[in-house]
């Protein structure tokens, strides 16, 4: 006899939370494509999409419909199973990061206090790195399974780029972790939003800069979009893809962009903390649920700014050459991150033990 002790309400609560967060991320990614064209249009002094709906707001729906209607082509010489697995993996790893991000403090529903974080594990940041390193497989498998030399080259480029920049990213995070003393994202946000706490950007400006550059490289965004460099590798690792499988790859990029924007806001800009306001005092005057909504909006506003920044950079800075990219990653970013780590370590030691001389 199998007896399962399952807290049904708990599972229901988490299922609704996961569904909600995934829906929100998908919608944000969908409208990022629209926003990207609008921003591009603004920067290049043109209008951008404006035919479908008011301000072209229905454009993402039209694009999605187009992708669904296109013919699904699987090349004859490709490896069919891996060819389909590739985009699925890319999409899945892009969505998995959202599990450890705190989207707000808590809400009260039907007398239950629900934390607005899917899983508060005490290795939150390491989990994100694990998911990030899985993201390489989506690109590599898709590129290899296409059985096309351009795709394979682009996939290898993408993978080596992501591995190289992961190192500098990890080193820049280590400096932050020395200050916070915790790997849990919730604790990091709470430290920043507590009364008298400052946002981590004030303590770690250099660390943030390194993290941001590496986030650009991890998302394969310009100036680091070598894997899909269209003028040298045709269309990169998704050259053979069509229909919604291509859509998955393109969409995963926008979800990654959203997730890294949220992550930057969480780690360095106070997360869901409402700026210039004492959150704890606000809870007493407004009630938990209202404050949770405001906190969520605050996080989204910060993330929206970073998404805009991603686009701003894309339409301003030209692409790096591949050797320049590797040079920047290994010879500039990693030494800078190491120096940042050393300085932080010395400061932390002096603050704990006093000036020894």
């Amino acid at each position, binding site marked *: 006899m*199998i*007896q*399962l*002790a*399952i807290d049904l309400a708990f599972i229901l609560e988490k299922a609704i939370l996961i569904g909600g967060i995934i829906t929100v991320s998908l919608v944000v990614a969908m409208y990022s494509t629209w926003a990207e064209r609008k921003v591009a249009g603004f920067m290049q002094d043109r209008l951008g999409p404006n035919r479908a709906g008011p301000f072209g707001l229905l454009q993402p729906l039209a694009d999605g419909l187009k992708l669904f209607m296109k013919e699904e082509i699987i090349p004859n010489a490709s*490896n069919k199973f*891996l060819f389909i697995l590739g985009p699925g993996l890319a999409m899945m790893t892009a969505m998995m990061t959202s599990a450890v991000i705190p989207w707000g403090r808590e809400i009260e529903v039907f007398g239950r206090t629900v934390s607005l974080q899917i899983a508060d*594990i*005490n*290795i939150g940041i*390491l*989990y994100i*790195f*694990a998911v*990030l*390193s*899985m993201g*390489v*497989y989506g690109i*590599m*498998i898709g590129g*290899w399974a296409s059985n096309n030399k351009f795709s*394979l080259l682009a*996939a*290898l480029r993408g*993978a*080596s780029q992501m*591995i190289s920049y992961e190192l500098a990213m990890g080193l820049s995070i280590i400096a932050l972790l020395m200050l916070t003393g915790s*790997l849990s994202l919730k604790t990091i946000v709470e430290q920043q939003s507590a009364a008298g706490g400052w946002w981590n950007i004030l303590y770690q400006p250099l660390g943030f800069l390194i993290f941001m550059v590496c986030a650009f490289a991890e998302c394969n965004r310009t100036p680091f979009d070598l894997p899909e460099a269209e003028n040298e590798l045709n269309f990169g690792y998704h050259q053979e893809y069509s229909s919604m499988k291509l859509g998955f790859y393109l969409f995963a990029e926008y979800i990654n962009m959203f997730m890294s924007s949220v992550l930057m806001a969480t780690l360095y800009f106070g997360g869901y903390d409402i700026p210039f306001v004492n959150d704890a005092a606000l809870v007493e005057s407004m009630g938990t649920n209202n404050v949770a909504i405001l906190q969520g909006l605050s996080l989204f506003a910060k993330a929206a700014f970073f998404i805009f920044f991603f686009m701003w950079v894309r339409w301003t800075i030209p692409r790096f050459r591949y050797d320049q990219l590797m040079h920047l990653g290994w010879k500039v970013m990693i030494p800078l991150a190491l120096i940042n780590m050393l300085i932080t370590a010395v400061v932390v030691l002096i603050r704990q033990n006093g000036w020894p001389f």
Partner: protein
Amino acid sequence: MTITEILFWLLTVVALTGALLVVTSKNPVYSVLALIATFFAISGHYILLNAQFLAVVNLIVYAGAIMVLFLFVIMLMNLNTETEPQKNKWLKMAGTVAGGCLLLVLVAALRDADSKSTIALVNSGDTGLIENLGKLLFNEYVIPFEISSVLFLSAMVGAVVLGKKE
């Protein structure tokens, strides 16, 4: 059966199937992917033992970095079943005998080990948590830890020397 037991058996089946697929599959890329699945199952076992840090580091280092390098090499060498040279019959036989000997030694060694009487702390142990692990590594085992880092450094220098074109 509790949830933990169900998860344990599920992960065990995944790990063993993955490990078998690594050996039996004809396509080397499938072998690598099966090995990644095996690492995931082993990480699941670590989580069941409440060793979260070990689980995540296993994923980052082995599944995330080392297996990517494996894939790199295999994809660039373009190993297909057609191009792979057929091994000598006697070589295969010798391999089987050697593998069997290794299995025998392993089984014999594990039979006498006292791990049989040790009960694993499922879900409740706290030695695997990152805080305890860090304190242990940097207090009690700091010298072995530093020495192993020197070992890694020498490996890195060796790789640079080998990779340098003269």
